[in-house]
């Protein structure tokens, strides 16, 4: 019983990180209709932003946190404005944009490597302590913070998308860009906001990883694959579905390694990705809210 609970807790924690990555990715994808795989690099860069502000410049942790979130959001906007937008203005196809996104991912990872080296970094904000016992399972304070932060972000995102004018405009652009333009919505501005908010969420994921684990220059690639897989499992055309899919992925990975060696953890997500792409590309709930 305690083993199952422990596995479930681990799955939810991993799922929270994946969900933050996938929600940002899905938000950007739905508004702009192309795959921004460089989102993974934004996540890694935000980890290094935090490392830079907190461990190198020695700023107060909460200033470091705030600056990291702001810089992460701005990095996303910058990528959109200086790379994707000029390509879109030249009528670049989605394949070109996809190649550009992978190039940015590699470029940013190499920039991190150049500036910080290949070694694993630890921001050493949290002292390693014994976690809290919960029906035989153990959870650390940092892990509780990760779970709560993710939930808070998703509640914020839900209200933002459903109750604010900007959120409704984003949903409208996601669904039908031409119709949105007919009702007077400036879809380029909406794209700006989607990159800002999506990268902000990615930045939050980067921070949580930096606080709980270590950061490495290439961590963005695997996180992007996990976030993408989560989005595909839930349904890439809906942000809540992508979040749900990411939690399911986190649980599947952790329950999977109860029966398989832990080295197969990544393999589980790849297998799930292939299975969903082959047999249910619209995801578990992604296809249910289609228009007639």
């Amino acid at each position, binding site marked *: 019983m305690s083993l199952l609970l422990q596995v479930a807790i681990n799955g939810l924690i991993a799922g929270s990180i994946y969900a933050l990555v996938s929600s940002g990715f899905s938000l950007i994808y739905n508004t702009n209709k192309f795959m921004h795989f460089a989102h993974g690099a934004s996540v890694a860069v935000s980890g290094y932003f935090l490392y830079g502000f907190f461990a190198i410049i020695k700023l107060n942790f909460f200033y470091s946190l705030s600056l990291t979130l702001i810089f992460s959001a701005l990095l996303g906007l910058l990528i959109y404005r200086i790379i994707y937008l000029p390509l879109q203005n030249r009528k670049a196809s989605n394949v070109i944009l996809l190649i550009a996104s992978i190039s940015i991912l590699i470029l940013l990872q190499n920039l991190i490597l150049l500036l910080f080296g290949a070694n694993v970094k630890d921001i050493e904000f949290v002292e390693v302590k014994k976690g809290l016992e919960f029906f035989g399972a153990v959870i650390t304070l940092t892990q509780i913070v990760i779970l709560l932060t993710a939930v808070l972000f998703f509640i914020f995102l839900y209200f933002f998308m459903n109750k604010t*004018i900007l959120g*409704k*405009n984003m*949903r*409208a652009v*996601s*669904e*039908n860009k*031409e*119709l*949105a*333009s*007919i*009702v*007077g*919505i*400036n879809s380029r501005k909406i794209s700006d906001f989607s990159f800002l908010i999506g990268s902000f969420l990615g930045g939050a994921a980067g921070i949580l990883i930096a606080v709980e684990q270590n950061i490495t220059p290439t961590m963005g690639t695997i996180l992007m694959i996990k976030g993408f897989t989560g989005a595909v499992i839930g349904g890439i055309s809906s942000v809540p579905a992508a979040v749900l899919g990411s939690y399911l992925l986190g649980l599947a990975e952790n329950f999977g390694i109860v029966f398989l060696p832990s080295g197969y953890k990544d393999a589980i997500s790849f297998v799930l990705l292939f299975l969903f792409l082959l047999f249910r590309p619209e995801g578990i709930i992604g296809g249910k*809210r*289609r*228009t*007639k």
Partner: protein
Amino acid sequence: MLHIKNLHAGYNGLEILKGINLKVGKKEIVALVGPNGAGKSTVIKSIFNLAKITGGYIFFNNKNILGLKTHELLKEGVCYLNQGRTIFGNLTVRENLELGARLIKNKEEVKKRISAIYKKFQILKKRENDFAYTLSGGQQQVLGLGRALITKPKILLLDEPSLGLSPKLQKELFLMIKKIKKDGISILIVEQNAKKAIELADRTYLLEDGKIALEGSGGFILKHKKIKEVYLGGRY
């Protein structure tokens, strides 16, 4: 009111409209009919900046509106109900109407206008909080009309509004369009259903190969040999 002069327009270097001249007067319904590919929708898309204009002028109330951005056109009182999907299915009925009213800053005014739309189309009030994709085809078209009317337009551009509707719903839709005209709104309607459109309109233009081939009132157009043979199957 709306005056299109010698309009040349198209897409990706292909000229679809080859010098169109067209007028829509105040409180007038004007129909634009013609075969597929004649450029009917391109006329409306040109007004709304969705086609590449290579020559000519578009005046609305004596102001050149060529190249105006969508929100500027909406402020001028020009509203467009596009072909096909006219609503946001994943937004509720109310959210769709709110989007239509997005240029109105006064929240009370928005509420008033939504109430007025609910009064006009009561089904929308009943389905207010439902996602629009759950509405029937006819109800979706009503919602599209409601969304367009909420801006209190001076002219409504309708692109194939009856597309995909059953004959019964088409009849209801055309009755609604007549009522809209009575409210003082001019209408430029592009329709595949030539007979219905001609009967509805005060004047009709026949568009062929990007040029106006014929123009006249309903009676004249319906009796015209060319229309009878080509568009009404010679049986009217």
